[in-house]
């Protein structure tokens, strides 16, 4: 499964400046792991050493925060869009 992943500005330098990359994986966890393999500079920014999501990172499958779906086990399907965003105070638009 190959899907589009949108990166926040602060992660783009680690991905050769790209705002959108493609990554493969059947779940969000596999996808993030593959993303880190493709762009090693991202390592440590998304996942903690224990392998859970960094506290200030929100990952969205389409419009839904995966923390409230099945977290890293959330299934990804063809045509989905994954967005990675830093957590900020509400009302930021």
């Amino acid at each position, binding site marked *: 499964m190959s899907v589009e992943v949108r990166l926040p500005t602060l992660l783009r330098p680690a991905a050769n400046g790209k705002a959108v990359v493609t990554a493969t994986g059947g779940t969000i966890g596999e996808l993030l792991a593959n993303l880190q393999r493709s762009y090693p500079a991202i390592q440590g920014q998304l996942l903690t050493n224990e392998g859970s999501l960094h506290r200030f990172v929100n990952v969205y499958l389409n419009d839904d*925060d995966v923390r*409230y779906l099945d977290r890293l086990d959330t299934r990804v399907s063809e045509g989905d869009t994954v967005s990675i965003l*830093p957590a*900020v*105070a*509400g009302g*930021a*638009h």
Partner: protein
Amino acid sequence: MARHSSVLDLIGETPLVDVSSLSPNPRVQILVKLEGQNPGGSVKDRPALAMIEQAEKDGRLEPGATLLEPSSGNTGIGLAMVCRVKGYHLKVVLPSNVSVERRQLLQVFGAEIIESPGSEGSNGAVRLARSLAEEHPEWVFLYQYANPANPRAHFEGTAREIYRDCPEITHFVAGLGTSGTLIGVGTYLKDKKPEVEVWAVEPPAGEAVDGLRNLDDGYVPPIFTEGGGEELLDRKTIVGPRDSIEWTRRLAELGIFAGISTGAALAGAVKCAKTIDSGVIVFVSADGGWKYLSTDAWTGDIDAVVERAKQTIYF
């Protein structure tokens, strides 16, 4: 009783209105709680009053004290109203890109406005307020993002009213800002009825996150973490400005004149209604439409309105 000694007595006891004609699922009822009926015009009157009364009880507020607060508008307006009545001074750190009416209302109640960069959104206002609070320990910093009186106002007020008026509730939907409404109402409802689901709606992050230099500049409100937000919420979903405005317009067809974040919450309720077989959804309308008239949200060309909304903070 329609006779009161203070306008502050009018805070709370807001009505629920059935808007099920907008439900995409005939087996799902949708009701909206109209927080714009509060005297300061928004849901934020509740935490504003609760935080000030708690600070008075704790002896943190001397007569004539000066308060400081970061706000994209509504909390500032609620605090400004309460401060006017009680004789306190208020300084509000306000992002420069809020609607003009929010600024005007703060001035109505005599608050002083300190601008933070619009491009940094609420995050920037929070950051500036925190550094000002450190520089000025003589100012009382109630700090809605970390003040337990904020969710408590919703636990003791908003939530009780909802459960009393609609005990058949199955899903609760509200916007996520400080998280005070979701934590306070969600905790109360799940205590009473554990099967109730709590859905959070948030605006797209937009430019504010572009300004972050590293992830440690990110922010999760302390009241969200301390209130067990991650365990409490069942779903968190982004609603963009186009959906928000379209649903705000649909509400006006029912005679309900609500702010743009209400359209976002309704879009979340509609999404919820589509995913469940049957149920009763209650969502919160944080404020009325008055403060957004200058944005032409109801009458302007939708594409132009959406573009403008992208530049404005409406949550």
